[in-house]
């Protein structure tokens, strides 16, 4: 079994606790126009500037084991994307082996795949996006479907996972009052079981879109600090634990 990834590296306390080795797995089942990793979006596309690495689960595992001294402060491995669940079988195998090795595991996912819960037994941390609770917008703008996302969230809560919900805040997509109200309502049943983090829109991926020969279509998407603060306050007032990692 092999895994394809397009980027890896260490980070501290950003994609899970402590110092973590983060792999970006290739391919995604959504198509967010703000994606900061467009090179990893299309499973069937490859761009010369961004080589894809394909390794066996076994080799990836040895690489991770050789990095053990780097997993300090509760760190470990985070698999992100692209979308992790597109390679669910290999990922499950890897996560299982990592747990056998006593290595802390996290994934970051758009949470749309029905395969997601099969990974739960091998996860210490789940970071999942809920980009919008507006079904139409989610589908038309990002190609996402709300129902399975919320279903997976429920399953994760039932499985008593440590859950961090990521919400990118994007002007014109999900940052207005109505949209955030809707999101709040959708997540309200889970408020005691999750932490939530709002991520203000940024243009980090813009250059990469160009390098891939793709058109970056985002315009006027920045949100004000005020809007950010207001949204966070609203969720806090409703009893959510809002964090910033």
């Amino acid at each position, binding site marked *: 079994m092999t895994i394809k990834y397009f*980027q*890896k*590296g*260490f*980070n*501290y*306390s*950003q*994609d899970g606790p402590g*110092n*973590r*080795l*983060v792999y970006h797995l290739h391919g995604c089942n959504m198509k967010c126009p703000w994606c900061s990793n467009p090179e990893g979006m299309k499973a069937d596309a490859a761009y010369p500037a961004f080589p894809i690495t394909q390794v066996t689960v076994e080799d990836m595992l040895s*690489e991770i084991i*050789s*990095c*053990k*001294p*780097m*997993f*300090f*402060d509760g760190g470990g491995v985070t698999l992100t994307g692209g979308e992790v669940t597109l390679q669910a079988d290999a990922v499950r195998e890897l996560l299982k082996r990592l747990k056998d090795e006593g290595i802390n595991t996290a994934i970051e996912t758009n949470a749309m795949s029905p395969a997601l819960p099969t990974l739960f037994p091998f996860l210490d941390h789940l970071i999942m996006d809920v980009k919008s609770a507006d079904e139409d917008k989610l589908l038309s703008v990002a190609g996402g479907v709300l129902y399975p996302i919320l279903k997976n969230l429920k399953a994760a809560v039932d499985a008593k996972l440590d859950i961090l919900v990521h919400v990118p805040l994007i002007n014109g997509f999900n940052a207005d009052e109505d949209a955030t109200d809707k999101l709040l309502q959708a997540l309200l049943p889970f408020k005691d079981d999750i932490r939530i983090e709002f991520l203000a829109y940024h243009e*980090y991926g813009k250059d990469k879109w160009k390098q891939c020969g793709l058109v970056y279509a985002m315009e006027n998407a920045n949100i004000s600090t005020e809007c950010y603060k207001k949204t966070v306050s609203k969720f806090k007032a409703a009893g959510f634990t809002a964090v910033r990692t």
Partner: protein
Amino acid sequence: MAINHQKTTEMAKELFREERSLMRLDGWFLSKEIGMKYEHETEGMSKMRRTAYLLKKIAAELPISISDNAVFAGTQRDAFARSYALINPAFRVETFSGYCDPTAVFGDIEPNEDITQERLDTVKAHDKETDYIKELTKVYDAAENYTKEVAFFVEQVTGHVIPDMRHALKVGVNEMKREIEANMQKTDDAERIDAYKAMLDSLDAVIIFAARYREIALEKAVGDKAEQFNRLADALARVPAEGARNLFEAIQSFILMWQVMCLEQAPNPFAFSVGNADRIFEPYRAMDNLSREDAAALFKHLLVFYNVADRSWAISQNLIVGGKDTEGNDLTNLCSYALLDAYYDMNLPQPILSVKLHKNTPDKLYEELGRFFFTPGCLTPSLFNDDSVFEVLRNAGVAECDLADYSIAGCQEPLIMGKDNANTTNSWLNLGKILELTLSDGVSTITGDRILPATGDDAITILKNLRERFYANCQFIIKEMTKSANGASRALSNLPVPFLSTLMGGIQSGYDMRDPVHQGTPYNGSGCLIHGLSIVADSFIAVDTLLEERPEDAERLIKALANDFAGDDELHEYLLGCKKYGNNIAVVDDEAAEVASKVADMVAAEKNYLGNPFRPDFSSPSTHLTYGYWVGALPDGRKAREMMNYGVDPLFGDAHQGLGFRVLSSFKLPYIKMNGGFASHFGIDPNYFTGATYEEKGIEFKNKVMRQFFFNPLNDKLAPFYLYVNVTTPEMLRKVLANPKKYAPSGVYIMRIHGTFVNFLDLSPAIQQDIIKRLDLKSTTLEC
């Protein structure tokens, strides 16, 4: 004492501008001329007495002045020449020559109507006839076969120690003299009595300077300058003769002591270092409870003192803050932060700033460091890991009570302040050249000259026995090198340093610090800077790979190396594709660890002129570039004349997995054996740090970089203890070069090269390009 910190700061900035407008440095020459003038009066004196006697004459006659913008009196201008190659725009890597002419410095002065060629020639001719130059020339001549293409290099080490000024500041020179007299009474050893007399005389030199400066101050103390210069005159009436009573007097005392110390070794005693300035000065700041702002304002003038003329020619003088004691208590104090404020506001090319860290360093220090790392063009401190350095020094025999007093002389060499004459840059070993000669059976592939004896063996025999032969050649070269290095140290002992000796344990020992027979300082050693670690390890692995996968190409490899891969791109590509150090690949990382360990052991087994071990120091202060120019193609795929790897770092471009992987490789090296020091550099892209303020970014820097490299709790080996960083991108630096007016309006854009920092705009083009290349951002990527 009332300090107008704003006014004092403005004056410091003006003083720096004045200094940078100085295009000539003639003082060292004038001091030599004065010495020559009075030499006839020293007939019959020992060399040490003569030095002290002439030092007094120099103190009495050297032209001096005080700027209107100076709050303190004193300069080190008269000790330095316009020599240091790397900040000379005319410097080219190709012009570096291993062979050394000790009188070349006379070429650094442009003759004019006053200082004529004739005057220069007279002093130069006189110098050439001194025992020092004659002996040194003999040493260089004897080593020429090895030094001409830099299999090794040796030098006599001036500067490069850390005087302990604390006692002088506290009790004053008069009391030091009484101590010397008392010790003199206790001995009937004529040699020591003579040395003590020399020390007494030499201390008078600083008193003479103080009196002369005081006279000038009194003359200048009129009108709106009265307060400024009366204060100065008052201080000079007190210090350095007596102990300092406040920060102002302490800094004044320190400056004059420093001036004489440098002058005694003119020209070019590079890399004298201050030590923990925060610990030195805090007691005096506390005496009149000076605020952080006021203390910073005075420190700004101290910092300007370290900048000499148009390019800040007195390079590598190091000032340290922070650190811990042996109990693990943090020793940061208010002066630590005041000094940081002074550094940040002034942003001068010298002196180098170092910060000692340990696992309990308060977050406040990291927060305050954030502004240095994340302001473009701002100086950045080099960083030391006390937790590891203490272990390394302990292991090397340093007494427990001295550990907290380690400081950095020059770039990265840890020595005990006031106690350690380490001759840090005494010898320079080029592993790259030795490997080239091993592969070519002793003939330089650069010049075709035979340097080592031939064995006559065929390619496959050479390759199969490569390690064994390489280490045998290392052994041979190291023996030759240390012989020459000791010769250079003995030659230097013809120039005793009685004044400095009083700050280095001489008052207790009764010997000159450079005495070649008796040890004048509590600790003594000689340094060996070892070059080319990772390229040698990579080459061994490449040869192993080739012998395993395509042994039929053994001869082809040797030929390709001799031809610098001309016409054999296929083999070149193959070799470049072999495993490289710096990517957390066990086989090659372990090889690097073994090369480091074996070579360090060989070096440390050699004894210096006093019978003390040589100290392995894996650093290459831009010599990876200049020495690399003399190294032929190697099996790792590095082409002839290209730079070697820097310090213990991977060769640029070879580590491409990112920071964590590179750090994991680095953990495997035997730092415990690197008691002379080592060098490592990270070029880091500032975009990985997203904190909203400098303080937040400082903490991010701690978490993302320093925690993993220095204080990783899961690293079960001794952690690395030195790092310097440049937080920038090649694009940014290219912009600065293309449009300095826009990106560096002050004309100063500080970067670090090896342990020192320099004004990027002052550098020679070759070094500018080296810096851009070696940012090597692929080796330090982080996730974001």
